[in-house]
């Protein structure tokens, strides 16, 4: 069974998904960050494939993309780094990226390599539903890759139903009308949207992302979904990290450990 599906079937506590950009801050950090995240208690890890024109991302993640590209990160390098990761990494791993570098790499080769290294899912923000269904779905499924769609507060109910019907793994709920890292905290209006979607009783689990940066926003979002995603805040942490392994451990603990403790008390 796909590790993402397994995770959501087994887990009752909120799922913490952490995003980082491959090749940032240094080219060879990928495996160290993966391992540290897993050991610190991240439940799901999303690795960004850097791109020159990441339109859905705000300044923090854009900047990490630029640095990663300067460091020499490519899809070829990343696949090599991920080879053998399943010897030590058990948590589900999702690749996030824009379509062009993947198309140039070759879609079939990409899917094959993902399966070989043990990638469980894909988040491709500029892959529209129509293209997915006509050209990509079969290939992704053949290689055991869950395609994760996004929804936003502007997404209509009919469209959410369509996304739900076509989703595997989880639905990525963009918390507000924004790019990544644009807003902090959660407003009343956003809660209205979270509740509206929660009441739709979708078959696919949901994770809330964009604007989640600390324990408070993580717990708040997790009341309305199976968990949440932290991206820009984690990139900011890596940017200033002297001892990345310890800093990652402290960061994840600051979000998770008290939550696990309070869940145990319940």
């Amino acid at each position, binding site marked *: 069974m796909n590790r993402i599906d397994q995770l959501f079937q087994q887990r009752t506590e909120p799922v913490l998904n952490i995003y980082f950009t491959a090749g940032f801050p240094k080219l060879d950090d990928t495996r160290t960050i993966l391992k540290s995240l897993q050991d610190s208690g991240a439940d799901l890890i999303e690795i960004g494939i850097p791109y020159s024109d*990441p339109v859905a991302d705000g300044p923090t993640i*854009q900047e990490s993309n630029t640095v990663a590209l300067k460091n020499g990160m490519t899809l070829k390098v990343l696949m090599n780094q991920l080879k053998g990761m399943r010897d030590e990494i058990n948590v589900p791993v999702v690749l996030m990226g824009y379509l062009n*570098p993947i198309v140039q790499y070759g879609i079939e080769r990409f899917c094959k390599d993902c399966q070989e290294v043990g990638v469980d899912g894909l988040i491709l*923000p500029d892959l529209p539903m129509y293209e997915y269904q006509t050209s990509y779905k079969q290939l992704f499924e053949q290689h055991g890759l869950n395609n994760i769609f996004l929804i936003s507060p502007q997404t209509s109910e009919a469209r959410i139903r369509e996304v739900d019907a076509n989703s595997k793994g989880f639905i990525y709920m963009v918390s507000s*009308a924004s790019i990544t890292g644009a807003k902090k905290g959660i407003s009343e209006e956003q809660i209205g949207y979270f509740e509206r979607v929660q009441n739709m009783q979708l078959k696919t689990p949901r994770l809330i992302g964009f604007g989640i940066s600390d324990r408070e926003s993580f717990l708040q979002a997790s009341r309305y979904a199976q968990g949440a995603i932290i991206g820009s805040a984690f990139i900011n942490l890596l940017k200033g990290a002297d001892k990345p392994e310890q800093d990652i451990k402290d960061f994840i603990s600051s979000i998770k450990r008290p939550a696990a403790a309070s869940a145990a008390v319940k």
Partner: protein
Amino acid sequence: MSSKAIFTVNEHGYYGNFGGSYIPEMLYPNVEELREKYLQILNSAEFQKDYNHLLRDYVGRPTPLYLANRLSEQLGANIYLKREDLCHTGAHKVNNTVGQILMAKALGKKKIIAETGAGQHGVATATVCALMGLECIVYMGEIDTQRQRPNVERMKLLGAEVRPALSGSRTLKDATNEAMRHWINNPADTHYIIGSVVGPHPYPDMVARLQAVISKEIREQLKEKTGNELPDYVVACVGGGSNAAGAFYHYLDEPSVKLVAVEAAGKGVHSGESAATTALGKPGILHGSKTILMQTEDGQVTEPYSISAGLDYPGIGPFHAHLFDSKRADFLAVTDEDAMQAGVNLSKTEGIIPAIESAHALSALQQMKFKSDDVVVVNLSGRGDKDLETYIKWGGY
């Protein structure tokens, strides 16, 4: 099947293998609303009445089709110039912005955003926003704001806010990224006026339709002047490709009319400093559509170069990618040097100082072989006032 059917967009937004709508889900509701309504609005009597009225009384259409006698003598053919340089604001760009501002009003949008490279589309957008009293924000690469200072001031004078794009390479493609990000952050009340036949469906088709007035007029004017509405050649420069799309549009299904698209070769097609997309690019995805794109082996978009800021874009519209792929149009490339010479030449032989973009189309005539009775229409997409500084620096006149 008529050949026209091959070149127009299909229901999924494709021109052959190119086009589509590769956008983040956050933009889907906006783009979908536009897709659902654009044809209905464009074809409505009210839109047509307002659009035609503004084109006539505000833009100054129809623009003349001028037989350039001395240039014709030089080249040994009948060279007609479609004088888009005489449009209000100095280029064809305003045909599109007049149409899209009416579109925005019909959609009930209150705010306008746009991207701009050289600043011509930004000025044309700021102009129609002033005309309609709508708030206007223009994203412009930080490097371009320095290169094109007068246009920045023009936009401000017209009441627009100019926001420098600080990300990536800080030029047109990054200004487009920033405009898209702004739209993601402000989906409800904002319309994004894209300046060329690029972007997700329905933008390329909508912009082509709004620029199609150029070839509609060429047909009428040529018929009046020569008795035949079909020339042998239509020649236009291509950055994203809006003026070429407009000049080609009503000739797409006339196979006897040869369409010539002219790209900027910068310092030479293979010099590493060029914007000759079809010569250097391969299929890829940028700014919402699948098209031909200048990129690295790993699929990172590369930074183009041309002396002309309006041609300095790493892709071309999917409309043109399909014309290239299907060989319906010939694609030529012209260097900085040759374009500048053609610009000076037109200034001295016809008393018309062309925009450097348009000078690329003029220079391409030197690469072509004509018969003495050939009728050639060159789309003179803009005037050279904005380029005076570049002409002065280049010298040679």
